[in-house]
C-alpha cells in the first residue's frame, strides 16, 4: 500500500438531475482516482446510467460540477471532453469494416494513413482479434464485437473510459471470460475507468472500488470487500450477496431476537432494529458457547459448491435463518433435512441496522 493518497482524476460535486418533477440524481458527490476501475452498481432506475451519461456530457446534469483532470467540464458537449465509451449494444457501425470502425476516431487530415493503419493493427492485437479487420461487425460474435467496440473507444488514447453495461448482452460464459479480459486490459493501459452494471458479481470481481446507488443517491463507496463485509446500509447489505434480516431490539452490545439475547455489532443503535447476518457466517458448531442456537434444518438446497439450508430456531419462536454449509461440513456433521444442530452467529458478524418490526 502506498501511503500517499492517489491523485484525483474525476471530481463530481453536488450533482443533480431532474426529469421534469422526477429527481433522477440527488446530491451526488464523488471522487475517482487516477487509473482506478470504478463501478456504479445498483438496481435498474437507480440513476447509475444517468450519472455515467452526465460524466460523458451526453445528458447534461441539471446542477452540479464535474471536474476532469483539473478541468471544469460541467457544461461541455461530449466532443469537447476526453473519454471513450462502450455501450451494451456495442454500437458498431454496421456498414463499416472492423478496421474502419476502429479508425473512425483516428481519421483526420493531419494523421498519415500508415500511422492509422499501424495503430489499428496494434489495437486489434491488443483485444486479441488480429485477423478480423476486413470483416463487418455482423460477421463477428457478440463477445468479439464488444472487444472491437472497446478497441474503438481506446483508439484515441482518451484519459477516461466509460463502460455502460458492456457485458450484459453476452452469454454467461463469454461474460465471465470478458470480465477478466477487460480488467486485464484496463490494468495494462492504466486508464481511469468507470463502468455501470447491475450485476453485483461483475462489480465485485472487476472493480477497485464500487459505488452502490439507489433511488438517485449514493448508498456507499468502497472496495468490493468493504462493501461486502461492512455494508453501510440495509439496502447495500441486501443488494450485495445474500443476507438474513431479522427484526430485533438492540441495547448497547446486546441484540435480542424473540427473547434470545445475544452479543451483536449494533453500530450504536438502541431499540427496534433489523439484525443481519450473511448465510455463510452462520457456523455449525459442536459445543454451545457465545451466540449459539439450536436449530432444525427445514430444507436444504444443493448449489454446486455449497448447500443452502433453511433453519428454524424453536428458542427464537420459529425464526427462520438461512445458512450456507460447505460440502465438507455437511458430510462431517451428517446434516440433512429434519436434523437438528448447533449454530453460532458470531457477534462481530451479527450487525444491526435501523428499522423496526414490519
Amino acid at each position, binding site marked *: 500500500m502506498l501511503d500517499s493518497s492517489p491523485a484525483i482524476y474525476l471530481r463530481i460535486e453536488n450533482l443533480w438531475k431532474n426529469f421534469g418533477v422526477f429527481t433522477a440524481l440527488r446530491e451526488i458527490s464523488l471522487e475517482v482516482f487516477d487509473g482506478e476501475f470504478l463501478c456504479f452498481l445498483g438496481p435498474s432506475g437507480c440513476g447509475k446510467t444517468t450519472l455515467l451519461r452526465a460524466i460523458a456530457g451526453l445528458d447534461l446534469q441539471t*446542477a452540479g460540477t464535474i471536474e476532469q483532470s483539473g478541468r471544469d467540464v460541467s457544461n461541455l458537449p461530449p*466532443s469537447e471532453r476526453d473519454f471513450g465509451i462502450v*455501450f451494451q449494444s456495442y*454500437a458498431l*457501425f454496421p456498414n463499416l469494416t472492423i478496421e474502419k470502425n476502429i479508425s473512425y*476516431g483516428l*481519421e483526420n487530415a493531419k494523421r498519415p494513413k500508415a500511422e492509422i493503419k499501424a495503430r489499428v493493427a496494434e489495437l486489434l492485437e491488443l483485444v486479441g482479434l488480429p485477423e478480423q479487420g476486413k470483416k463487418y461487425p455482423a*460477421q463477428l460474435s457478440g463477445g468479439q464485437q464488444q472487444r472491437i467496440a472497446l478497441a474503438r473507444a481506446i483508439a484515441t488514447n482518451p484519459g477516461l473510459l466509460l463502460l455502460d453495461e458492456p457485458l450484459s448482452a453476452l452469454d454467461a460464459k463469454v461474460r465471465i471470460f470478458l470480465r477478466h479480459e477487460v480488467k486485464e486490459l484496463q490494468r495494462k493501459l492504466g486508464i481511469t475507468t468507470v463502468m455501470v452494471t447491475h450485476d453485483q458479481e461483475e462489480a465485485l470481481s472487476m472493480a477497485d472500488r464500487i459505488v452502490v446507488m439507489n433511488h438517485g443517491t449514493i448508498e456507499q463507496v468502497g472496495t468490493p470487500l468493504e462493501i461486502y463485509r461492512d455494508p453501510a446500509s440495509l439496502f447495500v447489505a441486501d443488494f450485495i450477496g445474500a443476507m438474513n434480516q431479522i427484526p430485533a431490539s438492540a441495547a448497547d452490545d446486546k441484540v435480542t431476537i424473540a427473547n434470545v439475547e445475544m452479543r451483536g455489532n449494533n453500530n450504536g443503535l438502541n431499540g427496534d432494529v433489523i439484525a443481519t447476518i450473511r448465510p455463510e457466517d452462520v457456523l455449525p458448531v459442536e459445543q454451545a458457547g457465545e451466540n449459539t442456537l439450536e436449530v432444525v434444518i427445514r430444507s436444504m438446497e444443493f448449489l454446486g459448491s455449497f448447500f443452502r439450508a433453511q433453519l428454524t430456531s424453536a428458542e427464537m419462536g420459529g425464526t427462520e435463518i438461512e445458512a450456507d454449509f460447505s460440502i465438507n461440513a455437511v458430510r462431517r456433521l451428517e446434516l440433512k433435512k429434519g436434523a437438528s444442530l448447533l449454530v453460532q452467529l458470531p457477534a462481530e458478524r451479527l450487525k444491526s441496522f435501523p428499522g423496526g418490526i414490519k
Partner: protein
Amino acid sequence: MTTATMGPKVKPKLGRDDWAQRSFMLVIGLYLIIALALPLWAMLSKAFSTYYFDLGQYEVQVSDAEGIFGPVQNLADLDLPPEFEDLSTNTNGRLGITKLFPDFSFRSPVNYRFRGVSSDAVFLVGSERNTGPEWIELDSNTFRRVVLRPETERGISNFVTYFSTPALFQSVQNSLLIAAITTVITVALAFWFAYALARSKMHLKGVFRMVAMLPILVPSLLPGIALLYLFSPRQGMLKALMFGYDINGPIGIVIGSVFFTFPHAMIIISTALSISDARLFEASISLKASRWKTFWTVTIPGARYGLFSAAFVVFNLVITDFGLPKVIGGNFNMLAVDIYKQVIGQQNFEMGAVVSMVLLAPALLAFGIDRRMQKKQVALLTARSVVYEPKPNPLVDWGFFAYSTLVAIFMVGIIAVSQFAALIRQWPYNLSFSLSNYDFSRMDGGGWGSYTNSLTLAISTAIIGTVVVFLGAYMVEKTNGFERGRAVFQGLAMLPMAIPGMVLGIAYIFFFNNPSNPFNFMYGTMAILVVSTVTHFYTVSHLTAITALKQMDGEFESVSQSLKQPFYKLFWRVTVPVSLPAILNISIYLFVNAMTTVSAVVFLYSTDTALASVAVLNMNDAGDIAPAAAMGMMIFYTNAGARILHALLSKRILARSNAWRSGS
C-alpha cells in the same frame, strides 16, 4: 425537501455540431412554416373575411355646367339605385363610381370633386392610387375612371351563407355518403384479398400483389375515364350492365373510388394480418375451435386496428379526392369539386376557403382517429410473436384464387380499357387503332410540354423532397436538446396528411398570390408546384424516414461525439448508407405521387407549367376523352418504369450491402 441544496443550473455550452444542427432544423422548420403553416393561416383568415364597399368613406361634390359646385355629399347618402342595397363583394371586387350616378354621361360638361373622409379611404383613378381627405377635381371623362376598392370585415357570414345555400350544403351529405359507402366496400374487398395473400396457399400470390398495386400508378381521373368508356349511357361498351342507371354520378364515383383506394387499404390490412401471432391459432386449434370461431375470435380481433385504420384512410382519400368526381360525378356535387368550382369557376375565393374548412373537418377527424389506431396496432406486436405459416387446403385455396382473380380482372380491366381508349381512333365510330390520340399538340391542355413538365416536377419533387424529408426526420430523431423545437417540428410534419390537396392548393393561392408576400415571385412557377407537392406528401415520407432512423442504434451519435467526429461525418458514412433502402422508397413514393396528383397543383399551375395530370382533367373537360386517356396512360408507363427502375436499384443496393446487413 432537500432541493434547497441544489446548486445553480448548468447551462450547456453548445458545440459546433449543436449550432450546425440547430440551424439546419431552423431552415427545415422554416420551410414547413412557409410551405404549410402560413398558407393554412392565410386560408383560415380568408374563410372569415368578407368584403364590401364602404360608401360612407367617400364624399363627392358635383358642379353644374358653369362650374359652380353644389353641396358636399357623402356617397352613402346618395339616392342609390336598388341593386346597391347589398354592397358585399369579394377580394377582387371593384366598384366603378359612375354606377352610383344613374344619369352620368362622360360627355356632360359637369365637373366633379372627390375625396376620402379619412386617410384610410382608398380609391383609384385609372391605375393611380389616391387616399385621404384632399379634394381632387375631375372632369366627367376622368370621373368615370374612379374605382372603389372593397373593405375587409371579419366574421362568420361566409359560413352562414354556405350553410344556408342548399346547393352547397348538399355536397356535405353527398361527400359523407360516398365516402362511407366506398369505405365499406373497399375495406371488405381488400380484407379478403389481403387474407388470401396472408393466410392461404393459393397460387400466383406475387402477381396478385403486384396487380393490386396498379391503381397507385395512375391518377384517380383515369378510372373515371375508363368507366365512361365501359358504361356511359349512350356509347358504353357494357352499357347494358347498367340496367338504365347512369354511370355519371354516385355509382361511377363509388366504383372508381374503390379502384383507386384499394391498394392503400390492402397494404394496411396486409400488414395487420402479417403481424398476427401464429401461436394464437395453434392455441385455438388445440382447443378444438372451429375455423369460423377461430376467425372471429383470433383473426378479426388481431387485425381490428388495421381494419379501422384502413377504413379511415380510405374515407379520407375518397372525401378529399377531386379528380374522380370531376370526371364522372355528373351533377352530383362533392365537397372537393365545390372548392374547384368556387375558385376556378366563380372566382369566389372566400367561399372556396369556407368549403375547404368544411372539408378539413372530417379529414382532420379521420386523421386523428387513424393516428390513435396506428399506435395501438404497434403495441400488439411483441418480439416473441411467431409468424403464421398457412397450410394447404385445396378448396379454400382455389376459392381465394377465384376471388383474387376477379379483383385482379377489375384492376387490370380498368387499365386495359384506358389503354384501349387511348388507341382507338374514334370510339365508337372508327375502331381502327392509331397513335393519333398521343399527338397532344393538337389538343388543349399543354401538349407534350405538360408531360415533360410533369417529369420535371416528379424528378425535382423526388430529389428535393427526399433531401428535405430525410434531413428533417434526422433532426427530429437523432439530435439532442432543443426538445420543444423538435416537438413543434414533428407536429408540423404530421399535419400534411390531414390536409386535403385541394385545401393546400387554395391555401397556397391565398398565401403566395399576395403581392406583399416576399415569396410572391414563386407564384406561377415550377418552384411552387414542387413545394406544394413535397408538402402534400410530406407525412408518409417523414414517417418512413423516422421508422428507418429508429431502427438504427441510438448510441451511434454518442460514440461519434466521444470520438470527436463532426455529426455530418457520421451522417454521410453511416446514417445515409444504412438508410438507403428507405431513402429510395421515399423518392419513388414522391415521384409516383407527383406524377399522378391533381388536387393541389390544379390551382397552382400556369400556362408555362401545365402538368400531365392536369392535362388529363382539362382534355376530358374539353371533350377530348381519348387523348385524356392517352395522357393518363403516359403517366402510367412513366410510373411503371420508375417503379421497375426502383426495384432494380433496391435489389442492387441490397446485394451490395448483403455482407454487412445479414452477416456471414
